[in-house]
């Protein structure tokens, strides 16, 4: 599912002069938005909510869209909307948190044992679970870098972070994931 976000890509790249209609965006990139929203939020219900909100926003924002990387543009809208919501939640802790963990919580909680995972043969599930338990700032950083293959500069510009912040969030995010995933991911001895 790798998409090169910094270049024209996807079916719409063939006609770069034309701004796509909302119907086209929803039909051809709705899944992309949903998948990203799922990685960010960690639950189907929250992902549906976030992705729907993104698609509704896209309807009015399309007027301002300049043909280029449509998925890069959608990614920017989705991650920023998610980030703002999480920041808002963190600032207003009296509001009920739904199934997402407190963003500041790093303490390990129950995750499937290696035996359980081997039983289900689902490393992907464990990775997703570890990702979901990362504080949201680090989750955004590692997702954009490792799953969406964005450069540090692209992440800095997408999120409005300084480069130093991007560097440290990516590294700390990976280090936290490593702690959780070490029983599942073998590190070759060298």
């Amino acid at each position, binding site marked *: 599912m790798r998409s090169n976000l910094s270049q024209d890509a996807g079916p719409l790249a063939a006609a770069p002069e034309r701004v796509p209609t909302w119907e086209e965006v929803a039909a051809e990139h709705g899944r992309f938005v*949903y998948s990203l929203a799922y990685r960010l939020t960690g639950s189907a219900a929250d992902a549906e909510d976030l992705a729907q909100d993104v698609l509704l926003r896209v309807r009015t924002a399309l007027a301002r869209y300049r043909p280029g990387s449509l998925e890069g543009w959608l990614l920017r809208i989705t991650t920023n909307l998610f980030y703002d919501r999480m920041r808002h939640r963190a600032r207003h802790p009296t509001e009920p948190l739904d199934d997402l963990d407190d963003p500041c919580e790093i303490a390990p909680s129950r995750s499937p044992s290696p035996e359980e995972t081997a039983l289900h043969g689902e490393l992907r599930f464990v990775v997703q679970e570890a*990702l979901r338990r990362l504080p949201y700032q680090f989750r955004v950083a590692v997702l954009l870098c490792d799953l969406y293959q964005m450069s540090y500069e692209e992440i800095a510009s997408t999120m409005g972070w300084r480069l130093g912040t991007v560097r440290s969030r990516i590294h700390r995010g990976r280090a936290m*994931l490593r702690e959780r*995933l070490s029983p599942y991911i073998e590190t070759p001895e060298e």
Partner: protein
Amino acid sequence: MPALPERHPAGRELSSFLDGDLNDRRTEKVARHVEACPTCARELAALRNISAALASQEEVEPRPGWLSRVQEQVAAGARPASTQRIRLRLRLRLAGGIAAVAAGLMGVGLWLAPPPPAPVSFQDEVRQHLVQMNNPLSDQTSYVVEARYP
């Protein structure tokens, strides 16, 4: 054991090295260090594994019917939830602002209500004092005061 080219790079630098974010000079130094240092080589391999595990995550499919529900809502003229929230927040903020301005005006009114005591100049005070003392200089207070307190 051969001496290491230099001290261990910070973990953050290993991540940057992995992502090609270091300048050529640092890249070369870190590469040379990692070659000679098993600890850093293990560290780098672990980071690479984590990165690869994330990269291999596949696209997640929405539950059936989700997209068509969104399309129906758009056809029905739905607005993004967050826009609604922002509008409500703006409206509340506006109402709060109006209330604050009203309260401020009331406060100013109360403050203005009792006429403020007329400022009494130092000269007047001295003159009054001299008059009370029946001092002949009382009509020359300006001169007296200015001479003493220029």
